[in-house]
């Protein structure tokens, strides 16, 4: 019952709009004063593709939430703002490297790879620093105390962003010409931005899974998440393992920041707030502590967001996403793929 209800709930929006397009059709423009009406699923496909691209960004951020929650059971409210700082850093970096729209393709690719690596390192280190200053001293404090320092750091980072780039969204140069069409999949045009977002997310997630599941530091991290006390007794440096989780989460947030800047072509000191909210929702929806769950949750939220933006109007997007979340929580209290935290073992 629960599973079927869940599947029906999750598919409700896309199926509804698919049927709507097939039966009532949708209008793409005018030819000789007559509205052009189509009766196919191309528009829905377009929505889904855009949704996946957006979702790829949310997924990268959501992994940071899920790693940190899995290991120290803290909702890291500052994480969205680390993502924002990542965006700002990458824009500043490509400015410093002198990459502009006029730079040749090779220059752009090499330059952006450098920007990506440096941004990831900076965001990761920032996240580690936050953990060191604001969370580690509270390791044995009441459970909600670090939540407030997280909020505090989130405010501090927002203020940094505010002083850095001002109070309004700043448009940045469209380095990869993200709107250019690349190829068609049965009528749905794939743009460069989509390939960039999804194409960067997949290797990063695979790399992360490999690191967490196959390497010694990754195993130490998982052990700490499962039982910090036993891990300590086994000779694992718990502090290092926790720092590592923050490092990895911050790095992915930095990568997401770069993708966001290239994809949306603007940055804003407040962008981390909504991103953080959506990504945290994605992490919870997928099952907190579960990396695959975070990716799945991110993609679902991206699609829901895109459908709501496009079909209902952007002012309803948050409501749609949160109704989805409540449905998932009611039907599946531990998230779509199940949580991986201490109590659940």
């Amino acid at each position, binding site marked *: 019952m629960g599973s079927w209800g869940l599947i029906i709930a999750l598919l409700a929006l896309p199926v509804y709009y698919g049927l709507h397009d097939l039966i009532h059709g949708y209008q793409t423009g005018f030819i000789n004063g007559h509205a052009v009406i189509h009766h196919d699923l191309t528009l829905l496909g377009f929505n889904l593709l855009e949704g996946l691209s957006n979702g790829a960004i949310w997924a990268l951020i959501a992994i940071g939430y899920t790693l940190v*929650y899995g290991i120290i*059971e803290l*909702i890291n*409210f500052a994480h969205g703002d680390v993502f924002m700082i990542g965006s700002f850093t990458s824009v500043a970096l490509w400015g410093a490297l002198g990459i502009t729209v006029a730079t040749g393709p090779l220059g752009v690719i090499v330059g952006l790879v450098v920007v990506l690596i440096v941004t990831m390192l900076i965001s990761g280190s920032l996240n580690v620093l936050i953990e060191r*200053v*604001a969370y580690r*001293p*509270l390791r*044995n*404090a*009441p459970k*909600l*105390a*670090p*939540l*407030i*320092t997280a*909020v*505090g*750091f*989130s*405010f*501090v980072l*927002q*203020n*940094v962003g*505010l*002083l850095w780039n001002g109070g309004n969204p700043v448009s940045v140069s469209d380095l990869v010409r993200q709107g250019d069409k690349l190829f068609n999949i049965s009528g749905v045009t794939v743009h460069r931005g989509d390939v960039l977002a999804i194409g960067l997310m997949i290797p990063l997630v695979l790399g992360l899974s490999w690191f967490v599941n196959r390497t010694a530091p990754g195993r130490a991290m998982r052990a700490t998440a499962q039982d910090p006390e036993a891990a300590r007794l086994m000779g694992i440096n718990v502090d290092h393992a926790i720092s590592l989780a923050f490092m990895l989460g911050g790095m992915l947030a930095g990568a997401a920041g770069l993708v966001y800047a290239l994809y949306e072509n603007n940055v804003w000191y407040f962008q981390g*707030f909504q991103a953080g*909210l959506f990504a*945290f*929702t994605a992490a*919870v929806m997928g099952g*907190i502590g579960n990396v695959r769950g975070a990716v799945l949750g991110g993609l679902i939220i991206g699609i829901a967001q895109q459908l709501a933006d496009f079909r209902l109007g952007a*002012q*309803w997007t*948050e*409501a749609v996403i*949160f*109704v989805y*979340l*409540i449905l998932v*929580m*009611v039907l599946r*209290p*531990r998230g779509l793929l199940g949580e991986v935290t201490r*109590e659940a073992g």
Partner: protein
Amino acid sequence: MNELRAQINEWREAIAQRIPAAPRVIGGRWSRVFAPAALAFMIVLPFFFSSASGFMNATIIALAYVVMALGLNVVVGFAGLLDLGYVAFYAFGAYAVGWFGSSFFFNAHVSVLSSVAAGSIGIHLNFVLILICAMIVTSIAGVIIGLPTLRLRGDYIAIVTLAFGEIIGTLAVNGSDIHLGGGQTLTAGSLGISALDLPYFPGVGKFGLLSLRPWYWLILTIVVIVLFVVRRIRDSRLGRAWIALREDEIAAVSMGIPLVKTKLLAYAIGGAFGGVSGVFLADFNQTVNASQFQFTFSIFVLSMVILGGLGSIAGTALGALALSYINYYLIPDVLNTVPHDLGLNFDLTDLSIGIFGFLLVLVMVLRPQGLFPEQRRRLELAGTVASEQTELAGAGSASVTGGGGTGGGFG
């Protein structure tokens, strides 16, 4: 049975020996001497300031936040349900004034015990009636928000309440597109409903916008009532049930505490206080603007509760006063010109969220248990007690609570 009782008594004695008497920061003397003195001071406070000063304005807002924080403390502090969507109750309270205390419903002509003449456009209820409406609406909203969280544990509750808060906020913003018929919309969206009825009490008269003193005494009265009520509830059967659920849900339920009823009452009662404060704040600001109902607000109030001392009534009130003064008085009014005086070319308000955030981090790192922690938590955190004894103290909390509860005061 007798053996069990003997065993429990033995444990109690052991606890009494092992745990040094809880350090009484505030003892019985506080309630008898200091509380009336503090109250008298608060009552005469407005006479030392001009009636429209920035300080009075900040004080009134701070007291309204005290009510807000005490309400959230019921949910998060007493019952241990992390609520990140408290802004929903603020919104409901504010819309209670917007709907029932202005000419917003232009098709209606209702006036009940109000300063507005009968037959005027809109619904105009007396301020007290609006408060009651708000409490009813927010209690129901609390139950509705609470229902889906019953099956959830820990931080999942946080995200579901957050979701509700955001949905209510979105509805408020988009309410101007929701038509109820006759050209009437649900809310006025970000334009806001303004020109709200000023509080009016038969025999006392109508409040003015320029004289802040009546507003001050009104909110002070509300604060005193709420403090009294919250204290009585905490020490009641219901309050002890909340604390038992918070400490160990499974144990509490197996001892016969009704889970659903107890949890839902926490949301309902906590929500009702938020509604009261929302009514007051909206009326004081003279606008119900949908863009006020943001997640940040929930976080702001939660910071007050945790910073002050989760579960502690005095701590929560103190945290609310401290953070409100910092946010509404210290940074914008007092310290704003400091950089200029030092020869620097920026306003401190540019840094206000940063300073606020920095203070949150600093206070929490220095005092992880909050400014004024709950007595029970202070016991638990007493480092000299071995962990086994701490658990015993939790299990035998009846005696411990008795000590804390009868001590009196706002502890």
